């Protein structure tokens, strides 16, 4: 369960694939409780990410993630751009080894979560991507495992449906936000699902 350059690239390309094929889904989730652009933003940004990392030379996962971070920051926009941008930047700074092991991965995700929370000032329970990232980090801190990563990401993503938003655009809807999945939590689930798949395939 180790992350090297190639696995990192595979992870990000898989993430891009999921985003592109779920673009309309993410957008329509955002239409229900936001402004209907989350899929469009993510698809635009990760399209560019995918292009930029394809065929480029990288010396470490940190190197790849830094490129992802700056591209996301300048191409996604909206709320998700700076948040994912910060998350990737923090991951890239957390561990500079050529191959990152399970403990290293857990540490990277923990740093990313801290960055997201600092940037967005949201806590768990406010119906944002934090509601996926925090349970994932807690579980991976116990033991990093790709199956469990996918499981926790999915169940906590699904649990956002019943939450009432107090941060992000969905907060304007108050009780009307209940009963809809949080779009950023769904894209975060794709991120973790892609990570799990890439790690499993690299074994």
């Amino acid at each position, binding site marked *: 369960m180790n992350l090297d350059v190639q696995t990192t690239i595979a992870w990000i390309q898989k993430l891009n694939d999921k985003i592109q094929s779920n673009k309309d889904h993410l957008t329509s989730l955002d239409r229900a409780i936001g402004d209907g652009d989350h899929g469009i933003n993510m698809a635009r940004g990760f399209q560019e990410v995918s292009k930029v990392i394809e065929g480029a030379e990288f010396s470490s996962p940190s190197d790849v993630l830094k490129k992802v971070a700056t591209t996301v920051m300048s191409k996604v926009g909206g709320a998700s751009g700076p948040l994912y941008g910060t998350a990737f930047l923090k991951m890239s700074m957390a561990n500079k080894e050529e191959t990152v092991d399970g403990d290293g991965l857990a540490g990277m995700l923990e740093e990313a979560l801290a960055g997201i929370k600092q*940037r967005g000032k949201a806590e768990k329970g406010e119906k944002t991507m934090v509601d996926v990232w925090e349970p994932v980090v807690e579980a991976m801190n116990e033991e990093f495992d790709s199956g469990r990563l996918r499981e926790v990401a999915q169940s906590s993503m699904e649990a956002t449906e019943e939450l009432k938003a107090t941060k992000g655009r969905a907060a304007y809807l108050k009780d009307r936000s209940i009963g809809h999945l949080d779009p950023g939590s769904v894209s975060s689930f794709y991120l973790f699902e892609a990570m799990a798949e890439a790690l499993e395939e690299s074994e």
Partner: protein
Amino acid sequence: MKKLINDPNDIVTEMLDGFVAAYPNAVRRVPDTTVIVRKDSPVENKVGLISGGGSGHEPAHAGFVGHGMLDAAVAGEVFTSPTPDQVFEAIKAVDSGAGVLLVIKNYTGDVMNFEMAAELAEAEGIKVDHVVVNDDVAVEDSSFTTGRRGVAGTVFVHKIAGALAAEGASLEEVKAVAEKVIHNVKTMGMALKPCIMPASGEPGFELAEDEMEIGIGIHGEPGSETKKMASANEIVDELMEHVLPELELSGSDEVAVMVNGMGATPAMELYVLNKRVQEQLSEKGIGVHETFVGDYMTALEMAGFSITLLKVDDELKKLLDAPSKAPAFLK
């Protein structure tokens, strides 16, 4: 989706080029960015004033670039706040050493992207500060949540802070007057018909022929309530009921009024609405310093409007009255 556009992916860049083509002597586009600046930027010894946000709010924000108002406007994709690198380009283009003030509308995305740009600029030794506009009373004002949105009242912030900056005031002074405006400006809006996102071709919400959406923002998102359609007077009364108490006005107070169209509201209807707004104010003995009726902060082709009241004192009146060469706010 029926729109007068070419490829939805080119809409922002074409809009910016078309804007510059309309006012080539007044503004220019910073090459390879979505930034519109005064042609004579940076203006020596003047605090630079920057605003921006997602596109789809035209004439905001580029229309407010000009002598006496903004130095730069940064455009994001439709309804998507611009990225830090773009805002940073704007900061560099307008900074003359006197510092730069960012006028941010209170959306998570805008706040984060503009703050990150400010961090980048500070790292390069540029003095940058910011204010966050949150005039939309449709949203609950709570420190535990995202707080209130910034909507049409932002235009008054541009005008008044821009007028003070034009006088050569310091960054601290310009920021202080911007915050004074923010403290005294309240807005609420409604929609008859949603707008359609060009990239997805979908409306932000659905309304039956006898329904309207109260408490909408400027991004096509659903409002706080869907209600049965009512008359112009009833709608104005309802919005005023939310806006007025927030300003705690008394008999001797004066306000500036903005009746802002959302993009597809004909001027005829705005005037009909303004009639009732003015009646309400005059019944309550509130003086009106000046009234603005028109499209200032829109949401693509949404049909609807917002009412903004700004409580003014002598300082704000003087600055509001000052000349402006911004194409969408000539004075």
